[in-house]
């Protein structure tokens, strides 16, 4: 019974993560492309914060590897960045849960900055160059969109729990 409930609880997570992945590879017009938020990072942070048991950094790492293949970046680059962000979220999930939304948004800003910084750092070590807006753009839009993502995913979670 318990495992049943747990498996059922996984479904919305899987669906939202797949949607986040789709949004990640959706083509955007050139100008806006630099401002594509890190959908997957936002989604994973949310689920890691609220359902830490259903979530593990190994999944985050595998999803990151998936992004690496889809986007042709170094294997392990997004995996490392994503699992680091989820690791911090899991470590402080109890604290983050009691944050008011404004403070939580600031925390997400810090997490997204770390995420992009890791990508930037690895690119630097490997010798790939990209304009700085490619790194700051996603952090800005990601932070601005966090309240919306948060309330949307909260709604998803709320509704799925009502069903059980």
């Amino acid at each position, binding site marked *: 019974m318990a495992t049943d409930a747990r498996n059922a609880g996984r479904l919305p997570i899987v669906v939202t993560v797949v949607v986040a992945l789709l949004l990640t590879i959706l083509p955007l017009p050139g100008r806006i492309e630099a401002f594509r938020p890190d959908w997957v990072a936002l989604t994973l942070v949310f689920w890691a914060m609220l359902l830490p048991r259903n979530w593990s950094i190994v999944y985050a790492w595998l999803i990151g590897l998936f992004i690496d293949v889809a986007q042709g970046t170094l294997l392990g680059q997004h995996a*490392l960045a994503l699992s680091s962000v989820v690791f911090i979220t899991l470590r402080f999930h109890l604290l983050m849960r009691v944050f008011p939304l404004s403070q939580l948004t600031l925390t997400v800003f810090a997490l997204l900055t770390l995420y992009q910084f890791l990508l930037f750092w690895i690119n630097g070590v490997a010798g790939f160059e990209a304009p700085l807006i490619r790194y700051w753009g996603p952090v800005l839009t990601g932070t601005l969109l966090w309240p919306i993502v948060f309330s949307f995913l909260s709604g998803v979670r709320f509704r799925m729990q009502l069903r059980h």
Partner: protein
Amino acid sequence: MVVSRANNSTPARIPALGFRMLFLVFLSIVLMVVDHRFSHLQALRKVVDVAVYPLQVAVDAPFRLWGWLRHATVTRGELQDKLDLLENERLILKAELQTQAALRAENQRLRELLEARTRVRDAVRVAEIMAVYANPYGHSFVIDVGTRDGAFNGQALVDAQGVVGQIIRTALMSSQAILITHPSHALPVEVNRNGLRTIAKGTGEIDRLDLPFLPNSADISAGDLLVTSGLGGGFPAGYPVAVVTSVNRIPQEPFADVNAAPVAALDQVREVMLIFPSAPGPAADADGD
């Protein structure tokens, strides 16, 4: 509610979490180093690509459907207009082709005289660019042709006007390619007018190539057409690449500052042609001039 309470983690899990993270960091670093330095991980990429492909198809599908719908709902008038246009174009091309045939025969005779190897025409295959976002740092795209159809790494891609780019990674049913304007892309070219050979480097700007290795005394001027030279063996020779836009000779510098604009419509191309070189490898191309 029961679910969420059961999901609360206990502090006892934390050390295991840190250990796991440490392991993942280590694994990531090993993967990245191996991926950067060697090519052993292509197999792993191919395995994961099998899972990526359905997502790419899902993202591409609405765009494809839209294109199909637009195609299916053209009015008769529009079709008629297009037909007229194509008919005109065909006439002009045919006229040009007549002189081409004579030229080709002449070229062949001259090459025989020079005892150079005759150039065979390359086979092509049309591929569609999938509406999928491929790389966060730009200037690359995904096409719907993979190893199943014979695509290979380094294969040249052209459109109706000129060279578009080349394949850098193949999967079973799709391939990733970079444009010639990609900052890490360099292409051996020659000036069509006089056979002057040089390298055209990508700049990261969609409408500009850089020719960094031309001395101030080089015989090159704005308007010159650059074609692939075939040196290096990657690209077959003779495909148009770019038109020189500006030549800036700086007396105190060893090299002139030369820019060129790609002739292919890099930012609006939807279909590309894969070129299958007919003669194997660089040997056939090395007789440039």
